[in-house]
């Protein structure tokens, strides 16, 4: 059986440096990630957090950081619902590809049947699509959160 993970590949007309900035700057992330701020100093061992509407929703630790090529952090949702799930792990690999960057996102280390995996599998395609739009056209996407049909997200 395949291990529980989510993998998403996208090609973006940008530079690895600009993409790295977009992944690690809360000013950028607010634009493509429904107002979510990514917070960390992005060095290995430092804390990582997502803040949404003034509240910390997810926390973790930076596992690998090799700008502008590789970024990896652990991820635990702070809500009651996911308290018993072990931390999962998010990895971004940025590869120059001619005039483009190939971005590979892997979100893994889930327990079998993880509810978190179900939610992030719906969320990441919208976030990555919006990130690509922002870098290419200057305009992030406005995907209604409710359209993702993630349980418990309104």
């Amino acid at each position, binding site marked *: 059986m395949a291990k529980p993970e989510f*993998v*998403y*590949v*996208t*090609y*973006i*007309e940008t530079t690895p440096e600009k993409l790295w900035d977009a992944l690690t700057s809360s000013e950028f992330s607010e634009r493509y990630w429904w107002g979510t701020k990514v917070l960390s100093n992005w060095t290995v061992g430092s804390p990582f957090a997502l803040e949404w509407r003034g509240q910390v929703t997810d926390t973790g630790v930076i596992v690998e950081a090799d700008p502008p090529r590789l970024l990896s952090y652990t991820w635990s949702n702070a809500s009651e619902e996911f308290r018993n799930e072990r931390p999962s792990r998010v990895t971004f690999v940025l590869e120059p*590809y*001619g*005039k*483009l960057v190939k971005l590979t996102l892997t979100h893994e280390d889930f327990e079998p049947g993880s509810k978190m995996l179900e939610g992030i599998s719906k969320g990441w*395609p*919208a976030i990555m*699509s*919006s990130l*690509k*739009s922002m870098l*290419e*056209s200057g*305009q992030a*996407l*406005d*995907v*209604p959160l409710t*359209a993702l049909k993630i349980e418990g997200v309104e």
Partner: protein
Amino acid sequence: MDISQFKPAIVYTIYIASTPERVWEALTSAEFSRKYFSGNAVEVDLKVGGAFVVRTPDGSVHISGEVIECDPLRKLTVTFNVNWPALIEKLGPTLVTYEIEPVGDVVKLTLIQSHDRQIDDDILSGGRQGWPAILSSLKSLLETGEPLVIKMEPPRRMLEALKKLGIGTP
């Protein structure tokens, strides 16, 4: 054709700042597809049972199939068989479904590649490599007017797996 036995092997979702009309046209017109699909032209007779063909830039048939479901602006399902000797005999037909859904001001496009049997990961690696490139370029084309220039490496892992099965590849 009974498609109830087919199960999704690859699912790829992408959100595009566009309309269902333009996304549908991009998926079904030769002119559009040449721009984002490495010069390949999609030719499709948009009715159930109609022919579906993808031609390479030199005009030869690369993929052939037929329309299984056609709900304009919403859903298109086709058989999507690469024209390599013994491929269907060994792997069965490949089914490709595009689902188009307006969400707010954008369009959610979902690609589903399905098979009627278990397909090895080595063989699926071809589609896992190809679809994100094709659909990333389609999105760029619709949003910025320019497709991406993606020089695809040949899908080596898939080609080796096919060769082992005795399927003739270029």
